[in-house]
């Protein structure tokens, strides 16, 4: 296995990860544009959709990929948008040709009919989410409550219904031209490809791309406290929802390693403190989850649960704080830390085994670091987390204001 990364003259970063044991190749194009730079909330996500609508050279993007045995998908986050596909190795030149073509030409080829059709698909996507989760409207308000409406993270990635209505063809065209530039792109190619074929394909398709320089947005300081400390909503549901959200430092902070371990210790399916306590023993809640969403400006540490009886709502919140308090006071069983470390040892092995996950980790790392040299040390640092670091993190959480999300079923 050999990994190389270098920058083309047009500013595009290339990561090539050659693994001859892989029967497939994985191509991932990461663009440094996400919801945090939305000129209208939701526009970065709409643009992600529009990248699939074709150009004069390749009017049906999906069709070209399918003809080469490739399947593809994409997602938009706050800090970036990602387009990826998996294919047989022989399709590499064609896939790079198509990627280069859409980066250069999609904004010009767009027309009103295509734009309105895709906008309608996005409306459907938004509406479907409401049906999959009755508390989706509360989730749409979560980041506005946490960061405030004027913060780059202060709106949902998909935007709100009224925002989507405002997005027009010329606005997306301008947005695409501004952000979908080679200098904002990192292209990753991994798997069992022929290195000479890759080199030729890069020369033919990626090097000739021209564009303006990469745009560096001014980075606001991470907020120290949530914009609001309580948000509630009544929705048509048969159960309640409780969530506690804390703002933590950005992805580059080393505190997030301990935060990952803390998430696991609180909610892991076999030994998680909250899972075992409020879900299995007390039966006050179900679907106890913790999450750490690490981002460029700030990260979000969240704990949530579903409550079936309203009389348990406050007790669940108190129990979450009770367990954090015990950890803050040095009462965490050291066995749990050992278990969690073992789990992360397995986790990194599993991630490394899967070429897609392995290289996505590389790409994510390079999004925030200048080179890959620190990645191995990062994965190993999970084994170095100490009881006192967890204690310090729990103290920090207890002494920091947090956002409480209360979702109430309408009938209560």
């Amino acid at each position, binding site marked *: 296995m050999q990994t190389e990364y270098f920058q083309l003259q047009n500013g595009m970063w290339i990561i090539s990860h050659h693994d001859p*044991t*892989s*029967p*497939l190749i994985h191509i991932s194009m990461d663009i440094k544009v996400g919801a945090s730079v939305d000129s209208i909330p939701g526009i970065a996500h709409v643009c992600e959709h529009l990248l699939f609508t074709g150009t004069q050279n390749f009017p*049906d993007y*999906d*069709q070209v990929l*399918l*003809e*080469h*045995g*490739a*399947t*593809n998908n994409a997602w938009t986050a706050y800090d970036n948008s990602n387009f990826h596909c*998996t*294919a*047989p190795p022989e399709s590499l030149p064609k896939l790079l040709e198509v990627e280069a073509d859409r980066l250069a030409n999609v904004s010009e080829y767009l027309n009103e009919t295509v734009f*309105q*059709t*895709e*906008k*309608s*698909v996005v*409306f*459907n*996507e938004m*509406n*479907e989410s*409401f*049906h*999959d989760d*009755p508390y989706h409207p509360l989730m749409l308000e979560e980041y506005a409550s946490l960061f405030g409406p004027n913060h780059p993270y202060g709106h949902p990635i998909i935007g709100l219904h009224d925002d989507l209505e405002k997005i027009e063809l010329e606005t997306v065209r301008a947005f695409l031209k501004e952000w979908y530039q080679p200098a904002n792109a990192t292209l990753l190619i991994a798997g069992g490809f022929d290195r000479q074929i890759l080199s030729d394909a890069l020369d033919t398709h990626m090097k000739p791309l021209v564009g303006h320089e990469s745009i560096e947005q001014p980075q606001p300081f991470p907020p120290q406290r949530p914009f609001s400390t309580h948000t509630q909503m009544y929705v*048509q*549901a*048969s*159960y309640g929802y409780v969530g506690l959200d804390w703002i933590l430092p950005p992805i580059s902070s080393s505190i997030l390693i301990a935060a990952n371990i803390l998430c696991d210790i609180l909610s892991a*399916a*076999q*030994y998680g403190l909250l899972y*075992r306590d409020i879900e*299995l023993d007390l*039966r006050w809640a*179900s679907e106890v989850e913790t999450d750490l969403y690490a981002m460029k400006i700030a990260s979000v540490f969240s704990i949530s649960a*579903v409550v*079936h009886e309203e009389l348990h709502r406050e007790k669940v919140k108190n129990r979450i704080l009770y367990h954090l308090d015990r950890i803050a006071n040095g009462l965490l069983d050291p*066995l749990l830390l*050992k*278990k969690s470390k*073992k*789990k992360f*040892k*397995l986790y990194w*092995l*599993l991630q*490394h*085994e*899967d*070429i897609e996950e392995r290289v996505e980790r590389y790409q994510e790392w390079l999004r925030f670091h200048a080179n890959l040299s620190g990645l191995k040390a990062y994965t190993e640092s999970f084994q170095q987390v100490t009881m006192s670091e967890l204690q310090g993190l729990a103290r920090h959480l207890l002494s920091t204001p947090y956002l409480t999300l209360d979702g109430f079923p309408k009938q209560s």
Partner: protein
Amino acid sequence: MIETTHIHGWKVYHYQKKDAPDIVSIRLLFPNYNNDRQIGLSHLYNRLLLTQIQEASDRFIIGGDIAIGTDYTHRLISIDTLQEDFSDFFALIRTSIATFEVSDEELEQEKLLIKQEKHQERSQSKILLDALGQEKFFGCHHPFRYDVEGSVHSIDGFSPQDLKAPNLVQHGIIITVSAQGIAEVSSQLDSLLPKQAASNGVVLPPPQTEWGSYLMPYEQQEQAHLLYLRRTLPNTHPLYDAMQLGLMSLTSMFNSRLNQKLRKHEGLTYGVQSYHRSMSDFGYLSISLSVDKNRVAEARAYTQEILGSCTENWTFSELDIAKKIMLRTSLQCQTTCARIADHIEARILRNQEPWYREDWTTQIRNIALSEVKEAMRLFSSSPVLDLCTGASEGFSSSFRTTFPQKYQ
């Protein structure tokens, strides 16, 4: 891939992935399906077993993920673990199964939790419509008519006595995927597997579908849901693979006929979803989509037109794409221990031809367009079960208004 019967009576599938890191993926399958009165019993047992495994694991430091699942015909335990913990983890599960015991209070608490979750599902109209489709497709006495969790009524009826039956370790199948060879794995299993009767399969009754069109009343929301169910060829049919290719082109790829029209050309939906399951005696396909409540008639017309003409206009290009995607997917299934194990498990559950059989790739490559056309002709001879919720206008009098019994 080695398929063998262990001296203790277990059917063993071992796949040696020589370049695997120090991990091992294990899948345990216990053939079993619940009779009419016992729908949901396997699921209940599995949940209680998982709790007991979790409690028993307190004293171990094991690097492993365990998941317990229930399929209609099997109970499933999935483990991905560090090689160094394989024996400990396996012994833990074996002991938990052997010593499984549940008090009346624990049983009642778990039943209550499952019922609460059932209640929770009432907030999701898509889940309710799927449940209605299942009931109508399989008919009133088929074990597939409810999801594997059963109904509130069936869950209420379970006693500690009922839980003794699935407690017996019998007819077990084990799948292992690791860098080790079969001899090494087999010697480890000698001390880990209990003795049991030889594995056997599960025979299901045929479905008794109540064909027709159904409207499920539900509070008006932005989106309406449409669901179509159809019979498919059993996986023992000579044209089964040809039909699979046809169904991929019809429903399941980004550029499938349905997605092409409904999403790409008309923007009517975020995407058409499909699920196909075929067993040795019958198969079924479900197609679902969510659309704006004001555009239901349009979406229904396009869907019916495409389903109605699914025997026509097949091209070499369509067939070629479907073959490429099927073959690429099979390659992707071979990239990690967990994916290989999951794939072998899926093949066992559906009693299908495995990709690891040497002539499988050739078999797929050789399928002719005429075979796809004939397979789709046979597929299209099935009537259609047509269901909708979230909209109230534009339906003919042939639509019957009904709600899933499971949630009544």
